[in-house]
Each structure stands twice: as C-alpha cells, then as structure tokens.
C-alpha cells in the first residue's frame, strides 16, 4: 500500500461539521490535514458511511486508489451532497484527516466538486 507521504499533502486547520459516527475515529490523524486531488471512480451513497473513491497520482506517477470516508447519508444530505454530486470521471479535490497507519485513505473535511463548489 502506498504511503500517504507519497501523495501531495498539505497541512492546514481542520474544519468539519458535526456528525455521529458508527465507529471510533481514532484511526484517523486529526492533527493532520492532507489535500488529495483525483478522479472519481465510485461514489457509494450508503450507510453507515458514504464512501468516495478516487484514483490519484503518487509522486512517482503511479495511480493509487484512495478511499475517503464521509458521514452517514442523513448528515451528507444536510450538507447538500446528493447522490449525483460526484460522478465517475469528475476531478475533485478533498481535504482529509489521513489514516494514521499511512494507507491510502482518510476521513473527509472538505471536498471541492468538479463544478468548483465546496462541500464541508
């Protein structure tokens, strides 16, 4: 699995809206905020967590599949994100709290959709 260190990363202040989780978020590093830009391969509009999958490029040019864990459907609706907000082929930029163990995944903070609109 590719280390997040390979990815384009940026640290910034974390911003997220309240949400109830069905599991602990201790697996994510909330002191870090990583920015990932990639192409949407799948948007799983499901409970307990909505999941967004991106193909992103590592620093070495390899394509890496990145999983972004979002909140539940109810909270996602309240943020204005609908089933068709992200479509395969869209290029999006997400800020996430990355997994602590370095695998290619994170818990979303904000996402800029293909049309430029920011969701948090």
């Amino acid at each position, binding site marked *: 699995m590719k280390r997040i260190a390979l990815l384009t990363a940026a640290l910034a*202040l*974390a*911003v*997220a*809206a*309240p*949400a*109830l*989780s*069905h*599991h*602990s*978020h*201790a697996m994510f*590093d*909330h*002191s*870090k905020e990583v920015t990932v830009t990639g192409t949407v391969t799948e948007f*799983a509009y*499901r*409970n*307990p*967590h909505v*999941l967004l999958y991106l193909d992103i490029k590592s620093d070495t040019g390899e394509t890496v599949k990145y999983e972004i864990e979002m*909140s*539940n*459907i*109810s909270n996602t*609706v*309240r943020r204005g994100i609908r089933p068709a907000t992200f479509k395969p082929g869209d290029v999006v930029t997400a800020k996430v*709290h990355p997994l*602590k163990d370095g695998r290619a995944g994170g818990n979303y*903070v904000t996402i800029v959709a293909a049309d430029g609109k920011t969701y948090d």
Partner: protein
Amino acid sequence: MASRSIAAFIVGLSLSVPASAQTTIFTTADFHQDRERWADPSYYENNTVGQLRGMGINFDSGGRGSGQEAAARAYGSKGTGRVGALDLASPYPFKTATEHYEALLKQARGGTRHTKTTIPDWRGRWSGGPVGLDGGPNPASSVAAMLQPEYRERFVQEVKAAAEGRVWGAGAFCLPGGFFASLDAEEFIVTPDRVWTLAAGNGENYIRWIYTDGSGHTPKDAEFAKWHGESIGFWDRDALIVHTNQVRGWKGGLSEFSDQLETVERYRRVGNRIEGEITLYDPEVFVRPVRANMKFELDTNTAPELRPLYNTCTDTNGPSAKVFMDERGILNERLPGDPLYWNAADPHPWRTYLDESDKRYERYRKTQGR
C-alpha cells in the same frame, strides 16, 4: 480496635501521598491492581466518561481536533467532572422492575383504556433517548461506583482503552446495538392496544413492540433473552408506562448489562417534547437500581430527503467473515481454530477484543520504547 488502627493507618498513608503522585488511569502499569482507586475521581483526573473517550480521538496527536472531533482532548489532561452533578441511583424503593411496574399499575387503577379517538397523538419524527446514562457530567468514578466488582473492572478496562484510542463498538463490527440503542426512538406508532417504536440507525434499524392490551408477558417457560427484550405497558391517562424483561445482555447504558436486566419506562408528551424516565434493574451488574431521564424533541425539518431509511451495516463494512468461498470455489464455513473464525457464541465479544487489544498495545508500546 486493631482493625480501626489499621484503617486509620491506611487513611493516613493515603492522605500523606500527594494527589499528583497517586496512580491514575493514565499512569498505571496495570489497572487491574488499582481496585481501591476505581471509584475515586482522582484516578480519572476528574474526567467524565465522555472526556476519556474524547482523548482516544487523537491519542497520538495531543488531543487536537475540531468540528466533528470537537470532543478531542489531550491524553491525561484534567477533566471537569463534578461528583453528584447527576444522580444515577434510582430514588424509588422497589427492588425489582416487576414490583415497580405493578405499583404504577395500581396507582393508575389498572390503567386508562384508550380508543382511537382518545389515544395521545405522538406523530412526527423525534430525536432523543436516555440522558446521561454514561454518567454525563459526573467523573467516570460515579459510573464505576454503580457497578458490581466484575463489571467495574471491565468498565475501567474499557474507558482506559478508549482513552488510548482502542475502541470496541458493536456497529463497527456489524453487530447489533442491543437494547439501549433501541431506546433512541425516532417514531412512536401509538394505537389503543399496541405501541411500536422505530428508529433508523446508520447501520441497522430498531423496532420495539409494546403490548398495551393487557395480555402480559409470555409464559415463563417460553421466556428467552432477546436483543430488545419483551415489552408490555399501559396508559396512565396520557402517560405510557412500559415494563421490559428478557433482554439479551450486551454492551450499552452505563457499561455492560446482563440477561437479568429489566426496565420500567415512562413517557409523556409535553408540547414538542416527549419526556420520561427509565429505571434499570440488573442486580448482576448494578450495586443498586439506576435511573435516567428520557427526552425526545420533535424534529421540525420534514424534508422528504431526510425520511428514515432501512439500513444495514454490511453496506459499507462488508459481509460476515464466518462464511467464505474455499479453494474449490464452494461456499464453506470457518470453524473454531480457522483464521478469521468468529465465535458466534461469545456473549462478550468486546471483552475478547479488549483483552487482545490490551496485549497487542502492550507489545506495541514496548517496541516503540514508550
């Protein structure tokens, strides 16, 4: 006389130890050895259960968090728990839930028989449930003090692990939330002879059937422990009284609960609220009956896209590991001893998880030189 001298010596000894030098849940080498400290607020540095859990959100990063992680706290920081801020002990004189329920039924002169036209109107989507069952604003010691020794030890194990970011959650493993999760009702379907409560959890849906037709509980020889128990009730004018037994022991409420748990609930609508209380009787787990308020607020956002959903945890967490495809391409089952085997008969999977987690964490700490 001799025992008094010894007691005085022990008290003197403990008073002579500066608070800062006393073992805490954060400094202990082995919490199992701290039995005499478990009901002392200073053992938890006065942290509430919620604050201890908040430390686990970012255990390795100094408790930084914001937004949905706003409960994050630095590991080992001092808490704001206030002893007695919330009284968890039941004020009622009853020793059993049945005694309690029967007394309320007698007080209501057998209960109010409603018709379709007189039944209270509880339509709408509600949000709420029990308040402060994890001890709320009290230090964690207040919860420990309500638990029998075995459960007190398990409670300390669990909150210590949680503060260190090691958390067992039923939903995370696609296991049922159990009885206490079912109390967070979102809809009350009220009819003269039955009440249903419904809730759409993110990973599963919850339903309770409450029989108010006077038919009573199932016969003793047909009783068995069920996830949400079995509930009967009656109306006392506009208040619903519920007795639940046959609950399957699980995790929830203060800590754990056993198959012996029985509860008495009371609900009454007041404007845009349903207010009530729940009294828990479980002598296996609690040193005395426990009581908590229940509160539900009417959700005024009726947007169609926010309607409740049928949910299953497996949608994102995947199917059971018990069944798998073997090397012949045939559906097969994992048995005890097989990798990834899960013991369906384990009554306390969180204990299995936490015992293993304690061992792994200890090994990890040593390899990290912590």
